[in-house]
């Protein structure tokens, strides 16, 4: 149990502190860092999916006026560590996937760098590649664990027996598509190598964590962490893809080292991001549900097949939410991977929970249909008393309340038996649950200092639009017991104390905990009348880390879908979410986060699809004209509400994290509504009009 901070600044809908710079465009993102006389980089990518580079003709390029360096596997410096194969950039001529980095051109202008990079002729010894995900592959394997350290498989009781004996069963396979994070700011860096300086390498990098970024870079180059500085005051979105540095960061650092004293800039093109910046694996999920006539689950099982790259394993924890969402005596979850000649998958907003709340939440809808039961009620009757996975009590769980309040706000009771037509449109309603674990990282440190009459909190945190610039002062103010206007926060630089990555919706929980401890230390040391320069630091309070409870945020999402009776075009006029996600620090930024997640979930449901062409081993539609994310006109009414939840077990703020829960369950709610509207059950995302046309009258 923790004593929660007395909320005074916390809970206020303050306007973003970085707002003015953002609406004017003067907030400087990584590539935009003003530096003297920068040189420009353009990467060279492999155009085969597997094999070896046998030669690269760079002589003509190097001789061109204005070309400063051409790095290839044949002349690049040898890196100190190649343990992480993603970072072993230009270390060997082997090509493990199409689009892999095989060179970089540095030139006086960006036009020249690009021209030269595109003009380098490359000879390959090509080998057959294998890049098709299928469930009947004999080489599917069980990884040692899945992302975030979860066990690969779990099993309790006997699912098969329950499936045989149950009154009602559902057994279907669901598919989620390959997705690309696509933050609007591309992965970009300005880098400077100054040999002999105290801190020889400076990276102004677009990252979700300056310290994790620094750790990775210093290891790869064999530098002390103190020899590297990473700066990132603003991030133009990341959604997980900037949680870990990708190969482009190592490449730009190599380019900088090749041109000592000269700042270099590298931004991946949008097209290159489809190869190099991570993505969400497609998933194939077999769901089995067994229930009695009253809807109580007798068994729930999920068997997941998904992909990773041969170069580096990333195992999305898709089966994990099925382990804890609903009560059932018999349960199973498995993950199997195909290691393919493909780019490296990675984190994308709510890894695990996002795809993992699709199959089960659609299967439940199918079960409700079989039972002739209200899908909201079906979820309520399967509410578990304790975490079915660990047996631990919940720190707080208000899913049922979310479902009830959501149903009421949405007008769920108007939902008829199905296929309602209004003019040219079929109209349907759907529901699904949301969940996201409440996480806090073990390490983060903050400083609090008294400076010219104001309190300054420093921590190497990141604001990717999540609101850290605004929210951390609110926490610091309450922890210090002062007016929020008297607090200044400095983030986004490794010169400030170590901060964990902005990932797993843990940023505010973790950094806020460190800031609170630092504030307490400060008050303990200097009292309420400090002097200029007084300073204290604090780490995340390990003792306050609760291990005895299962801590999650929950939610319920309701969707109205319209399907055009002639063309099958789909629209989502309404999406209502109700969440129980702990205490809300800033309702203004929180609502934006939740709605942003829900909108991205809708985008996943209706639009997004990285169409992988296994013949050539790349995403065919690798730009923003062909990879569709929802545009303004796709969005009509999206509401996010929250319950007033007090959870004393999570942290001193009582906050649970809100960045990711919004995207979980949305796609299932949409697909369930599509079924209600048309009778067509789509089990494979996205739900596009071609899947509607055959079912239309």
């Amino acid at each position: 149990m923790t004593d929660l901070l007395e909320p005074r600044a916390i809970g206020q809908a303050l306007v973003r502190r970085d707002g003015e710079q953002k609406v004017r465009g003067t907030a400087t993102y990584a590539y935009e860092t003003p530096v003297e006389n920068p040189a420009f980089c353009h990467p060279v990518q492999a155009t085969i999916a597997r094999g070896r580079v046998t030669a690269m003709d760079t002589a003509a390029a190097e001789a061109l006026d204005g070309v400063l360096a051409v790095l290839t596997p044949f002349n690049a410096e040898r890196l100190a560590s190649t343990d992480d194969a993603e970072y072993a950039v230009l270390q060997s001529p082997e090509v493990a996937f199409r689009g892999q980095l095989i060179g970089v051109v540095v030139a006086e202008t960006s036009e020249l760098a690009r021209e030269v990079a595109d003009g380098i002729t490359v000879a390959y010894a090509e080998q057959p590649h294998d890049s098709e995900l299928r469930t009947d592959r004999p080489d599917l394997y069980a990884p040692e664990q899945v992302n975030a350290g979860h066990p690969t498989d779990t099993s309790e009781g006997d699912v098969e027996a329950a499936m045989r004996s149950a009154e009602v069963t559902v057994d279907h396979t669901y598919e989620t598509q390959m997705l690309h994070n696509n933050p609007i700011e591309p992965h970009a860096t300005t880098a400077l190598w100054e040999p002999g300086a105290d801190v020889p390498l400076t990276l102004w990098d677009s990252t979700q964590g300056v310290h994790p970024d620094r750790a990775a870079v210093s290891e790869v180059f064999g530098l002390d962490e103190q020899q590297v500085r990473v700066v990132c005051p603003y991030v133009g979105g990341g959604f997980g893809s900037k949680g870990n540095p990708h190969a482009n960061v190592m490449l730009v650092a190599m380019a900088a080292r090749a041109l000592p004293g000269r700042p270099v800039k590298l931004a991946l093109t949008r097209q290159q991001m489809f190869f190099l910046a991570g993505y969400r694996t497609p998933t194939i999920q077999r769901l089995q549900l067994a229930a009695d006539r009253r809807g109580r689950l007798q068994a729930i099982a999920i068997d997941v097949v998904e992909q990773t790259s041969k170069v580096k394993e990333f195992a999305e924890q898709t089966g994990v939410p099925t382990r804890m969402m609903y009560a059932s005596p018999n349960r199973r979850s498995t993950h199997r991977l195909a290691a393919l000649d493909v780019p490296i998958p990675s984190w994308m907003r709510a890894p695990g929970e996002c795809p993992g709340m699709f199959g089960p939440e659609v299967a439940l809808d199918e079960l409700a249909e079989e039972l002739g039961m209200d899908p909201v009620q079906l979820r309520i009757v399967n509410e578990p008393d304790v975490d079915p996975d660990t047996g631990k009590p919940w720190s707080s769980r208000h899913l049922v309340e979310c479902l009830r309040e959501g149903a009421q706000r949405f007008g769920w009771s108007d939902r008829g038996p199905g296929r309602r037509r209004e003019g040219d449109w079929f109209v349907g309603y759907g529901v699904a649950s949301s969940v996201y674990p409440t996480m806090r990282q073990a390490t983060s440190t903050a400083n609090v200092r008294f400076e010219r009459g104001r309190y300054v909190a420093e921590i190497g945190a990141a604001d990717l639009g999540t609101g850290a610039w605004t929210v951390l002062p609110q926490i610091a103010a309450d922890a210090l017991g002062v007016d929020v206007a008297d607090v200044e926060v400095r983030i986004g630089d490794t010169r400030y104390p170590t901060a964990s990555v902005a990932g797993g919706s843990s940023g505010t929980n973790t950094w806020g905990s460190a800031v609170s401890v630092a504030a307490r230390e400060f008050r303990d040391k200097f009292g309420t009348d400090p002097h200029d320069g007084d300073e204290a630091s604090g780490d995340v309070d390990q003792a306050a880390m609760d291990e005895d409870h299962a801590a999650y945020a929950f939610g319920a999402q309701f969707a109205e879908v319209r399907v055009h009776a002639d063309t099958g075009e789909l629209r989502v006029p309404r999406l209502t979410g109700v969440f129980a996600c702990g205490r809300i620090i800033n309702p203004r930024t929180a609502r934006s986060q939740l709605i942003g997640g829900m909108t991205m979930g809708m985008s996943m449901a209706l639009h997004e699809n990285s169409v992988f062409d296994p013949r050539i081993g790349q995403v065919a539609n690798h730009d923003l004209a062909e990879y569709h994310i929802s545009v303004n006109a796709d969005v009509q009414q999206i509401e996010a509400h929250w319950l007033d939840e007090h959870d004393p077990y999570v942290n001193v703020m009582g906050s649970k994290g809100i960045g990711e829960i919004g995207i979980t369950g949305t796609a299932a709610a949409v697909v369930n509504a599509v079924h209600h509207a048309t009778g067509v059950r789509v089990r494979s995302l996205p739900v596009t009009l071609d899947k509607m046309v055959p079912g239309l009258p």
Partner: protein
Amino acid sequence: MKPFSYARPGDVAEAVREVAAEPNAVFLAGGTNLVDHLKLGVATPDLVVDVRTLTSQEVTDLPDGGLRLGAASTNSEVAADRRVRERYPVLAQALLAGATGQLRNAATTGGNPLQRTRCVYFQDVTTPCNKREPGSGCSAVGGYTRYHAVLGVDAALPDPDAPGTCIATHPSDMAVALAALDAQVQVLGPSGARTLPFTDLHRLPGDDPATDTTLGHGELITAIDLPPLPAGTRSAYRKVRDRASYAFALVSVAAVVTDDGVRLALGGVAHTPWRATRAEELLRGRALTDDVVRAAMDAELAAAQPQPGIDGGNGFKIPLVHRTVVATLRQLTTEAQA
């Protein structure tokens, strides 16, 4: 991007001469397609001749009651023109369904119909493509065909290695409306001016997929003329796409209904804006009931070839365009009765 020279001549005649004299020269208008292709390496000219400020930016009345759209008039100005909105709603709607406000402010009457296919392989210079690199093959066959053709193609899986194979579609919305309106293209070439029916501007791939249109090298579009329409004409453009906005057509329909009959053009289904002449014939003089329209479209689509491929192929386009035509004509006839 390959280096190139840039020229802005004094007038159109000079522009035509400059392009005609240099085999690897191109015209530049709004640049929204050409500059995209320069960056992708799809277009690699030695000389870019800027005509944006040379041709007319005006929409003017023609003596016969029609309208002349200067080649440099922007898509947004044309769509906003009162006369276009009142007399040629199909064109205003097509323009407004295309691209975005920002792009329409740059895109021009001359450039829009000459934009090139959005085939993803055409735009990716690392993959074979007969249109971009004659004889290299067609990557789209059996690949990602969602935005590809079903009409004007001779087989469900043409030979990908044959030099004539191309299953690309023409992406312009405006062009579909212009085809249905029987617009006329004013062209100035090295050997003088000529007028060309819009429906003759685009060509099927034949054995030369690299060539999209019937314009010769150095031929410049100076204007597009809209012929007058009889009183009582109704017209509409219906675009079906994967997003509510800012997406190319999966299929689209431009319909112009007069007392004499229907003029129908289809988008997203062929290498050209597709005039549905068979359907038009069958509809001539008939009351446009759903059943009559369905039968006409059955005939129009009898030769359609669904292209299989990853992500389900594009067979859905055949019922989809069929349904969209029925719905569009139903809407126009109901409105006319109301």
